[in-house]
């Protein structure tokens, strides 16, 4: 059992796991019943799936002594932007689809910022 074979097994396991994660994310987007629940599946599971592909791409040439750092850039960018787009989509959902009476209390004494008049009319 050489070291490069161990690395290859490790990378193969990451690839299979990442593929399953990406599949679960897209299947959840299709199957989950409520709009807010549908926000969960792609923003988390699909990001992990892509992260697995990028990790394998970075460590692919390790037996030759080469590690490419370009993947790190994409991974950091994706991990930074996925929560921001999820937040924006949640705000849009709040504004467009929810009945204001059905929302829970914010716990700060103020109403939901997305639904107040000055932010809505802009």
């Amino acid at each position, binding site marked *: 059992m050489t070291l490069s074979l161990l690395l290859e097994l490790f990378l193969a396991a990451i*690839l299979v796991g*990442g*593929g399953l994660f990406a599949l679960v994310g897209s299947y959840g987007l299709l199957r989950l019943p409520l709009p807010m629940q549908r926000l969960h599946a792609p923003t988390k599971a699909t990001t992990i799936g*892509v992260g697995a592909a990028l990790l394998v791409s970075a460590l692919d040439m390790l037996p030759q002594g080469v590690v490419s750092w370009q993947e790190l850039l994409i991974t950091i960018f994706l991990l930074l932007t996925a929560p921001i787009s999820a937040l924006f989509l949640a*705000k849009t959902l709040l*504004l467009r689809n929810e009945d204001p009476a059905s929302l829970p209390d914010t716990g700060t004494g103020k109403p939901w910022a997305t639904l107040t008049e000055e932010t809505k009319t802009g």
Partner: protein
Amino acid sequence: MILTYALTFMIGCICLSLFLNLVRLFTAPTVTDRILTLDTMTVNALALVVLYGIWAGTGLYLEAAILLALTSFVGTVAYCKYLLRGSIIE
């Protein structure tokens, strides 16, 4: 050798994910779902590009992956901003 099989498996998974996203895109109940599906589709396409880069053995395709990530994020935020405020740049 085993890495090639795993690569083929993941490419199959991503292709199936893209097909499921396409189904969702045409049957989406709300506008927000459509934006979310478009975002997910771009991320899946990015994964496909990265996997092809591993397959071909070059780092050249990562530039395309960076561009896809950038445009997908800016596009999602612009769509949401338009729905939230009625304009993108105020």
